[in-house]
């Protein structure tokens, strides 16, 4: 770095320090907020192996632009700065530090992926930067006691499993349950969620558990072992490849349990088709958002509004992508929290408001699902609806069910 650049950098820093102290004096604004602007930071994988998730960040940006064109929030425009981290944790640390220390964003929003968020978890909490609505489903993000600046969004794996447990207790009270899970935190979240949901009946009802490693070639052996336990209910917590193997094997060996398949592995294209569509008939899973390909939503005003947004912002190629529905819902929640803050845009207040969501409805979530948070509960979505596979697609059934995570 040349001396001149250094001088410029120094002057900028001094300037920012003055600007910072001036806005603190007003007592209303945290860093990154002025009378006309709110700066929001984000990281997304726009390149690299996970780049298909990058649609999330692009949808956020387009949605915030739309809000800005309509006059912003209380007269303030959103300045959304989204940086590419390629899903690489060291890059996330770098980008987030740039967002917080150089760009001086007010808060971080929707940072995507479990490893990237793990890498910045300590940093943001140490520096008291709101880390809102992380885009990952692990249970650990809902920990306001130890990490009061980090809040999740999606129903956690544990909550989903808890929902299956509630259904089982109600409809299959004498079930003998077998569990197949991936041997890592994700799989164990499901197992623990099920145990928590079943409560003191867990020890009696869960008759067998088997785990697999992601490096295993197949899960055939595990499936056969679980059948041998005499279980009549199977919960599968597996990623698409192993979910497809499980669906196929269960059918092929003539086992007919009530099969609950985790939402991580319920894609029709990636799981049900490779397994054989007829082999998955009757399998139960759960969801919380409207599937953009489901015809039952396509005449609703909510879907039409989403579709119009997608088409008018250059996303017409992504109108079957659930990620675009999820990204849209994230952005709407962020806007709602900022609205709730009014003119008191401090970092403390934004956390307080984010932790005070009460029955907030989102147009692209399933009817009946609302967002609720409290100072002890940083997981906004805790409800899902069950769905059954009919050989072509998933059909919703029953009521929306709540779970409470682990």
């Amino acid at each position, binding site marked *: 770095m040349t001396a001149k650049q*250094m001088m410029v950098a120094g002057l900028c820093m001094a300037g920012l320090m003055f600007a910072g102290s001036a806005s603190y004096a007003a007592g209303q604004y945290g860093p990154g907020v002025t009378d006309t602007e709110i700066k929001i930071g984000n990281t997304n994988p726009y390149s*690299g192996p996970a780049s298909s998730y990058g649609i999330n960040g692009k949808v956020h940006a387009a949605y915030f632009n739309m809000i800005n064109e309509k006059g912003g929030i209380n007269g303030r425009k959103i300045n959304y700065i989204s940086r590419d981290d390629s899903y690489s*944790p*060291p890059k996330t640390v770098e980008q987030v530090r740039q967002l917080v*220390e150089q760009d001086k964003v007010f808060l971080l929003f929707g940072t995507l992926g479990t490893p990237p968020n*793990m*890498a910045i978890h300590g940093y943001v909490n140490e520096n008291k930067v709101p880390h809102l609505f992380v885009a990952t489903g692990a249970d650990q993000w809902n920990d306001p006691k130890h990490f009061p600046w980090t809040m999740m969004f999606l129903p956690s794996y544990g909550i989903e499993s808890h929902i299956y447990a509630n259904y089982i207790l109600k409809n299959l009270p004498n079930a003998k349950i077998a569990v197949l899970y991936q041997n*890592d*935190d994700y799989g164990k979240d499901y197992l623990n969620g099920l145990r928590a949901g079943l409560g003191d009946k867990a020890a009696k009802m869960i008759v067998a558990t088997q785990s697999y490693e992601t490096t295993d070639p197949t899960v055939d052996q595990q499936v056969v072992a679980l059948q041998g336990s005499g279980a009549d209910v199977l919960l599968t917590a597996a990623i698409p490849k192993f979910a497809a193997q499980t669906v196929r094997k269960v059918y092929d060996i003539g086992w007919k349990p009530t099969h609950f398949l985790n939402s991580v592995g319920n894609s029709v294209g990636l799981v049900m088709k490779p397994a054989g569509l007829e082999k998955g008939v009757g399998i139960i899973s759960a969801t919380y958002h409207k599937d953009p390909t489901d015809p039952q939503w396509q005449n609703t005003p909510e879907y039409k509004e989403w579709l119009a947004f997608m088409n008018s912002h250059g996303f017409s190629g992504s109108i079957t992508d659930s990620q675009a529905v999820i990204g849209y819902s994230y952005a709407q929640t962020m806007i709602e929290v900022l609205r709730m803050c009014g003119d008191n845009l401090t970092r403390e207040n934004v956390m307080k408001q984010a932790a005070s969501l009460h029955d907030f409805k989102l147009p692209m979530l399933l009817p009946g699902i609302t967002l609720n948070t409290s100072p002890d509960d940083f997981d906004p979505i805790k409800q899902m609806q069950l769905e059954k596979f009919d050989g072509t697609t998933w059909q919703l059934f029953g009521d929306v069910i709540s779970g409470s995570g682990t």
Partner: protein
Amino acid sequence: MAETFPVDGTAKMAMGRKSATAIAVWRWAGTAALIAVAVVSPFMLSNYHVFELTQVMIYAIAVLGLNILTGYNGQISLGHGGFYAAGAYTAAILMHRYGVPYWATLLPAALVCFALGVLFGLPALRFEGPYLALVTLAMAVAMPQLLKYFDNWTGGKQGLVLVKPMPPPELGIDRDRWLYFFVLLVLLIAIRVAANLLNGRNGRAFVAIRDHPIAAAAMGINTARYKTLAFGTSTLFTGVAGALAAIVIGFVAPESFTLFLSLSFLIGSAVGGIATIGGAIVGGFFIEFVPNFANDISDAAPWAIYGLTMLLFMYVMPRGVVGTFGPWLAHALQQFGSARRAAK
């Protein structure tokens, strides 16, 4: 920085003894000035820039390792990201599972990566050029999955969160600056060690094998031994860099060590100048800043900009920045020296 000549020494031999001394003086002065800048600059920069420069130095150490292997010994590696990961995980596991203080993890990481490199170097003896590149590519491709497989040790895909080192309180500097100086110290030691190694008989043996393996063997150089040694030394440096990265970032996960990291090292090495020591530092700057620079120019096609920048560098300076300017600078100094003598 410290060493800007092609190592073959012809330039040195061509010079008169006096001008060589003059150049040595200039070099010492230059090195001292650079070190002074490196020591002072963190106090004039924001924490974020200090952190960025720390990253630059870590990459520089990794690239320095690759330069020893590829530049001086002529063995191409596309797998140094894997050794970087091995170093990072050695440090991370020692810190996380055994509570070893961060500074004490560098030596074990160095030893582990040296051993890995030697083991890897043995079969590599049978391969040359593009074939060796493919073999090492296997290392880079396999590493993230291996890390997920041994998840009892590595934490699997969740990775390991490390406690960030605290600076000694009596120094009165913050963590970013402390880590900067810690890494700077390691970098200076690494440069010193590399310069000693490469300017001595080991270095001459490396280069001889690179330039003409048969002639080298005919001169009595044990090529197998030196090629393996080059491999081990190279991965040792890169492994230490990986350990530093784990310490500075405070988190390791398999996603941190993708194939692209290995490619970045090779790119940094080529841009800086593969058979130079100073080139490693230029390479570190390139790896750290050019992707960000490309991102700032174009959101839509950052990698196209990245590619263009790389092409431009290689087109204008085919021997890398230091490989091109180093001899030029040496020549200029020599002219300057003789002009002064003539004036007397």
